[in-house]
Structures are given as C-alpha cells and as structure tokens.
C-alpha cells in the first residue's frame, strides 16, 4: 500500500491534524502497519468468543416468526387462525396489540409495523402478524395455519408510471439551452441498474427482553441504536428510559442494518410484551433476502453537450429511482443520487431532475453508496462513450474535465479545498500502467469498434477464446450527511476519565467490521498523549452512551471522530489545568484518584463556512468530497460471455488515514461489492416477489471471483474536521462498476448499459448489429 499525503490547505489555528495520525510513506509492509494496533475485538472474533445476537442466551426465551403477505398489493380483510389447531400454548400478535402508533419511525412514517385489518398490503412479504412459541418446531407446525383473507388490488411495478412520488429535486446552474447551442456534439444515453442485496453474512437478528418496570430491552445486530430507540418509544408507548437498545457484535451491515432493525426490534418487542418472556427473532437467509431492504433500482438518462476537445458544456440528467412500497430513507438516497449524478466534472450548464416513486415491491433502503453508485455508473459509462465517439482516451477526457480547486458544482458549491480528483486519476493511471496496457488490449484493434463483431487475432489474450480489456472510472463521494443533515441531527460523543483511571469513549456509533473500536482509541489516545490500549470503548447501550447519530454515510471517523478528538482536547486541557500544566499522561491517574471522574460531552457544531439551503438546493451540499479512481482489468470469455475481473488498482482520497490496514480493508471490500454489482448480483422479480431469495440463487463474489487488488490511499485533508478525515466506507463502491463496464467495452467493443453485465447481456450486445440494443456504441 502507498499513502500519498497532500498538504493541509487551510489549517486554521487549533485545528491542525495530530502528527500521530499521519501515515509516513513506507510505514506499511506486506499487509502490516507498523506501530498500529490490531483490531481491538479481533481476538474475540478469531477464537469464536465474540457474541453475535444469535449467540446470546436468555433462559426461557421463545422463538418469534413473522406471517407475511403473499401478494404485491391487496386489502387485508381478516386474519384467520385455524380453529382445529390449539393456539393456547403460543402467542399471536396483530396490529391490534400495538400500544402506541402503528408506524415505523422514519422520514415519512408511512410504513405500518403490522398491516391492520382493513389496511392495504403494499408489497410481497409484508409483515401482517407475529407468532411466538417455546420452540421452533411449534412455529413450523402452526405457521401454515394462520390464513390471511385478502382482496387483491392492482399492483404498480413501473417506477416511471407510478403517480406516487416520495421525493423529487431539480438542481441546476447556468443556461442549458446556451450550453447545448455551443456544443459540437450532443450525446444521449440511458442507463439502468437493478436491486442489490447488502448480503451481510450475519442475517438480521434481534432479541427482545421485557423489563420488570414495563420497559423493554432489545439486543440486536444493528447500525443505529438511537433509530431503534426512537421507534420503540413511538410504537410501544415507552418512555426514553424504558426503551433500551444494546448492540450485539454485528456481522456486517453495509446500510442493510440502518433502518430495518427498527421494525424487527418492534416485532420482537411486541411478542415479548404479550408473552412476558424474552423473544428471539433471528432471520434465516431466505427471509432476510425476501423481506429486507435493497439498493434502489434506477433509470438514469443523460443528454450531454461537448466540445470537440471533450470539454463538457451542458449536462441534462434525469434520475428515476424505484423506492418500493414505503418511503424509508428514499428522499435522502435520491438526494445523494441527484447531487452526484453529474460526476466529478466541471460543467457550466447543468440541469438535474430526480424523482423517486412508489411501487409494489418490498421497500428499498440504505446500501453503501446510498444513491451514488447508481448515478456514477451512469455518468462514467456515458463519459466513456463520449470519449469513444470523440476519439479521446478515457483518462484524457477526465483530465480535461475533472474538478480542480475553486471549481463550482451544480449546487453552486465552490470547492475551496480538499480536491484530489486529478491526483487520484494520475496515481491510478500511473500505478496500473493504464496507457501502455490499453494499447495491448482489445481497444488497440480500432477496426472492430462499432462493428459489434469480435475478430480473431490481436484481440485475444491468454487462452484462445478470451479477450482482455482495461477500464477506468473516476468518482466522488460527498463526505458525511447531505446538506444540513449534521446540523439537524446534532450528534454528541463523550470522552470520560473514570474514577478508576481509565479513559473511556462513549458514543452511539457502532462497530460492524469497519474498525470503529480500533480507530477511536487511536484518535483519542493520540490527543491525550497516552497509548491506545489505555482507552476503552464503552459498550453500545442506549442506557449509557449518547446519541452520536446513525452509523451511516461514512460519517463515523469524520464527524464522530472529530467530536471525540475535540472532547479529548478539552479533557486534556481540563486535567492539565488542575496540575500546573503538566502533561496529561503524567497526571491523569493521580487526577482520577483525587478528583474523581471527568466527563466531556462534545456536541456537533456546524463546520465553519459551510452553508446549504434545503429549500433551493443551493450551497455546500457536503462539507467536503472524497475522490476515487479505479482501474480494472478483465477477461471476457468469447463463447460464454462470462467476465473474470483479474486485477484492480484502487486509489481513494479519504482526507486522513487513521489506520492504514483497516482503511485499506474498507477499499478492498467496497471494491469487491462494486464488482459484484457490475457482474453477477441481480434480483429477479415475478409479480413483485423476489425470485432468487436464497444464497444459492442470489450470488455474490467468492475468493475465486475476486481480483488481485492494489490500494493507494491519498490524504487531501478536510480542514473542518480536526483530523482532516473525510470517510472511506462508501467511496470505493462508486467507481468499481463503471470501471468494469469500461473494461468489458475495451475487451469486446460493446457498451453494457444495464447492470449487471451478465453473460446473456454481453453475448446479446456482441451479437447485435451496430447501433442496436444495449450494444449501441
């Protein structure tokens, strides 16, 4: 791994990045980072001692199950329990058992916890009733004896035809007509992406445990404890103190455990409330895929005006997202999608129109990238087609258009610092030897371009019947929440020196594999001048930790990390002031013994100079952006159309690398999810039901499908965060798929405009006459 550090542009007083966090070039070797701690909960995970939700034992606990709709849209007339069966030993919960509001706490609050009688079933696998029993066998036996009486209603599956709009935005600047009038060439294109399943290896899981005071605790696999907490208060009619959320070890989230755990916690709690016992609701894989949220499918249309030299002069972009049956987080997913849809490129005249509508499929929600991977696949593929048409190399057209310092985005945001688009592009092109390799792959054979034919000879590489190709994509990802989201949330994180002399970080942000437990002690210890091992992480339990906002949007290291660094600085100053300014490390043990505990609660304060107008969509859409470039090498089997992704060079600017190995791990994992999105991950639907709702049929990449990966981390710090970090989780997800599609084009000369690039789509495109179907170039 290589780390490139760019100068801190506008280090304001008191906001310099601590030296301890700067990764010196050469400090990492062979997959190891010298001087950085290993994953904190790693030993527990490696010995099997770590307790995930399903590993927790609660004596006397019952098992819960969900009775779900089997139609995409219907009126619920009744719920019938087969009278020939004994129901006395089990508990059945319906909407009538809900003490508070029958709504899942979310943005629009349109989703019932359970469909009430007389209410409308809006999607297949929608929860209608709940069942709990002392053992799983009883559940299996009784389940088919709950009958839903329904009256079918006509479903809507086409997001463009749906008249129920959850959100829409129009963003723009300049004069679109004048831009197109000045263009030498106008190119149009339409791009489509389908659902993608997060496919964390631990399924959604929750255990509800009733408390003696009438309260309820839930232990679960989740990203956002305070989302669940809020949902429990609303639906169960509990006070804030009566509702308690405890995160168990969490086996991956990727956005899939952002909002879904709320409804699952409510289901478990309703059963626990009625049965008076702990109730376990551990989804199996089939139920998890069939019922939980996916990445939003999207249709993206581009009309782009360019000069002959490749300069963009006009972008007219339309984004339509399919939200599924309920609103969930759709307005913010769409917002991020709209804001990223132009790509990391300067263009004076832009119009972006985006809308998300309701259809009768299970609701879509958060997934790593959050609206950006869909639109960045579209804009990158479109730009490659423009370059192809103009005869400009893909790296060159990007050099000519990529944002530089002081450029302006479509919302009128001036990029005053932390712009590394050109830097990541240059590093990716150099490290991959892009220009030289491209001469030797399929693209070298110019006569085949546009012919839709694959001639023999120079194209072929490796075995006789494969063609190799190389592709490039550039991307950007707004750091942290969109717009004024962070100001609205008002997160708090705390650093405490306990009476026992231990330093403790208290926050509602969760570890789900990304490394939170490891990097926070590192950041706080660095400020206090002590070793990371001397800093504890408080367990995530809403009874003890403050609301640090949800663990989403790649915001934890950047925003909550910034809060903890500021809290540590205040703690250090306070303790040192009590000891004549002697260093914290020397005096903190004695201070704890004599003075007792000192706790600093640090609340979020708006980043200086960052303003966004939610009403007009003008201003600083994000406090900063991360920048990524990805070069992918593929081989395409000319007989079967199968794509093998062989090598990847990923270059990501994350602002500040806190832990090189963990940071690199985020890039590698995100890149492979993007490759899966590009090549094999696809949900097939029939009448609103997911057909491939098992792991045998929904495929994700194995070790054999995964390429060799090389990561280069770049540091262009954000001055608003005390450590300069901009987040890393989502960035690599934005660029992998368009790089794969570009490499496929380089190999076989066809543009795949709908993800995933399945063998069927590739063969169809290769067989199509020039200018026809998805193979149109």
């Amino acid at each position, binding site marked *: 791994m290589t780390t490139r550090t760019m100068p801190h542009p506008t280090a304001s007083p008191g906001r310099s990045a601590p030296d301890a966090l700067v990764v010196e070039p050469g400090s990492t070797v062979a997959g190891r980072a010298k001087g950085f701690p290993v994953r904190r909960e790693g030993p527990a995970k490696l010995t099997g001692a770590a307790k995930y939700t399903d590993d927790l034992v609660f004596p006397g606990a019952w098992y819960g199950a969900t009775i779900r709709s089997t139609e995409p849209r219907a009126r619920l007339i009744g719920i019938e329990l087969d009278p020939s069966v004994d129901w006395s030993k089990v508990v059945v919960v319906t909407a009538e058992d809900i003490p508070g509001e029958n709504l899942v706490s979310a943005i629009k609050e349109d989703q019932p916890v359970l469909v009430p009688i007389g209410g409308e079933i809006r999607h297949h696998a929608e929860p209608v009733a709940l069942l709990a029993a002392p053992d799983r066998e009883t559940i299996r036996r009784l389940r088919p004896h709950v009958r839903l009486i329904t009256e079918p209603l006509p479903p809507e599956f086409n997001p463009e035809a749906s008249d129920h709009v959850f959100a829409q935005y129009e963003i723009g600047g300049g004069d679109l007509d004048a831009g197109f009038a000045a263009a030498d060439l106008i190119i149009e294109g339409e791009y489509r992406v389908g659902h993608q399943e997060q496919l964390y290896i631990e399924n959604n899981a929750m255990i509800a445990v009733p408390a003696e005071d009438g309260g309820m605790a839930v232990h679960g696999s989740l990203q956002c404890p305070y989302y669940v907490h809020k949902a429990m208060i609303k639906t169960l009619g509990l006070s804030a103190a009566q509702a308690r959320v405890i995160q168990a070890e969490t086996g991956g989230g990727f956005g899939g455990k952002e909002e879904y755990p709320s409804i699952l916690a409510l289901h478990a709690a309703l059963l626990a409330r009625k049965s008076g016992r702990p109730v376990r609701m551990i989804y199996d894989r089939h139920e998890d895929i069939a019922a939980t949220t996916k990445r939003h499918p999207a249709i993206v249309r581009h009309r782009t005006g360019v000069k002959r030299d490749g300069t963009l002069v006009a972008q007219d972009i339309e984004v339509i997202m399919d939200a599924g049956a309920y609103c969930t987080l759709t307005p913010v997913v769409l917002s991020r999608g709209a804001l990223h849809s132009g790509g990391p490129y300067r263009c004076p005249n832009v119009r972006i129109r985006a809308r998300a509508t309701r259809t009768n499929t299970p609701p879509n929600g958060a997934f790593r990238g959050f609206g950006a991977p869909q639109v960045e696949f579209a804009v990158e593929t479109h730009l490659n087609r423009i370059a192809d048409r103009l005869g400009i190399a893909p790296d060159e057209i990007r050099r000519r258009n990529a944002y530089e310092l002081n450029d302006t985005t479509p919302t009128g945001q001036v990029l005053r610092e932390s712009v590394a688009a050109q830097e990541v592009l240059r590093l990716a092109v150099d490290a991959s030897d892009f220009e030289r390799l491209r001469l030797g792959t399929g693209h070298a054979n110019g006569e085949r371009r546009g012919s839709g034919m694959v001639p023999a000879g120079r194209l072929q590489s490796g075995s006789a019947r494969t063609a190799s190709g190389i592709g490039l994509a550039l991307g950007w990802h707004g750091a942290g929440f969109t717009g004024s989201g962070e100001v609205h949330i008002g997160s708090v994180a705390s650093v405490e020196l306990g009476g026992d002399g231990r330093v403790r970080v208290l926050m509602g942000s969760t570890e789900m594999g990304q490394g939170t437990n490891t990097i926070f002690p590192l950041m706080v210890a660095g400020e206090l001048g002590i070793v990371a091992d001397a800093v504890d992480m408080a367990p995530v339990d809403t009874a003890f930790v403050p609301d640090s906002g949800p663990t989403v949007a790649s915001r934890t290291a950047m925003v909550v990390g910034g809060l903890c660094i500021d809290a540590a600085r205040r703690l250090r100053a306070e303790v040192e002031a009590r000891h004549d300014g002697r260093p914290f490390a020397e005096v903190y043990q004695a201070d704890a013994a004599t003075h007792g505990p000192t706790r600093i609660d640090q609340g979020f304060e708006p980043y200086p100079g960052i303003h966004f107008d939610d009403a007009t969509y003008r201003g600083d859409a994000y406090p900063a952006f991360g920048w990524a470039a990805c070069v992918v090498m593929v081989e395409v089997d000319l007989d079967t159309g199968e794509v093998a992704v062989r090598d990847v060079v990923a270059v990501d600017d994350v602002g500040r690398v806190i832990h090189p190995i963990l940071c690199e*791990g985020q890039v590698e994992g*995100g890149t492979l999810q993007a490759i899966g999105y590009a090549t094999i991950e696809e949900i097939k639907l029939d009448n609103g039901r997911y057909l491939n709702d098992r*792991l045998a049929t929904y495929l994700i990449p194995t*070790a054999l499908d995964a390429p060799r990966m090389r990561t280069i981390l770049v540091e262009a710090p954000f001055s608003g965060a005390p450590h300069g970090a901009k987040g890393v989780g989502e960035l690599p997800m934005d660029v992998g798929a368009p790089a794969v599609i570009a490499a496929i084009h380089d190999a076989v000369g066809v543009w795949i405009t709908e993800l995933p690039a399945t063998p069927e789509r590739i063969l169809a495109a290769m067989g199509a006459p020039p200018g026809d179907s998805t193979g149109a170039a």
Partner: protein
Amino acid sequence: MSAVRFLINGAPAEVEVPGMRRLLDVLREELGLTGTKEGCGEGECGACSVLLDGQVVDACLVPMSQVDGRIVRTVEGLSLAARERGHLDTLQETFLRFGAAQCGICTPGMLMAARAYLDAGGGPSPDAIREAIAGNLCRCTGYQKIVDAIAAVAAGDRP
C-alpha cells in the same frame, strides 16, 4: 433419538438427539460452541465450516447420524494449545495482523477452511488458496487480506 458419540476439539462428547438433527445445532445449542455461525443454512456460505475427520464440511448440512465415532474440530479448538498460553495460534495471529477479519462472522469458518488447506500441505500460491476458500463467503474484505494471511502462514512467516 439416538446416542451419538464423537470427539469435539479433543474431548469426548455424547448427545442424545434425533439422527437428522444438524451438527450445527448440536454444536451451538447442546455444546454451547457458538463460534460456528449460521449464514444460510443450505451449504452456500461456509460460515458454519468445521472439520470432520480433518475435512472441511458445512455443519448445517451434516446430520448427527453421520457424526457418530468421528472427530469434530471447531474454531474453539483451533488454538486450544496456544490459548492455554494466553495466545492465538499462528493462523489466528496472522489473520489478526493482516486485517483478514472485519465483521468476523465468516472468520471461524474461513479459519477452518484455511486450517484444512494448510494441514493438507497447501502452499503459498494465491490461486490455490482462493480455490481452497471458495466455499467460504466474505462480504467485508474482498478476500485480499485473507489470501495474503493464509499465504504468509503457508510460507512459514511468523507474525
């Protein structure tokens, strides 16, 4: 119900269970060995990989009737000797140093697949390692660091 006797991580065990009960459930629920995870229940993800007479199997697909008289090894048994000294074994330690575990839910199964590969004399070739762990899905790491870690152990690198 029938009595099934087997060796689990070196110790004798006897359970009275229906013959078709899954080995996975017996490990987790009868023996309290929750290090072995369930990811899909149909042999696709490998999260429940254990060693049965040294061979990697998906414990979700193994009925107890096939376990009688055999030797079962789980993640809890991987470092028995090492853990008495308060340490991870070389494979676990290398996974830790290389960042080969993230969320950790696939890790026990991945370790067992790696153990079987190494015990069978597997070398540091990345292609051979990828083949050996192809039945174990990981959604976090992109596999690069897992392959690197196993290769390092195969090559005899000490963490």
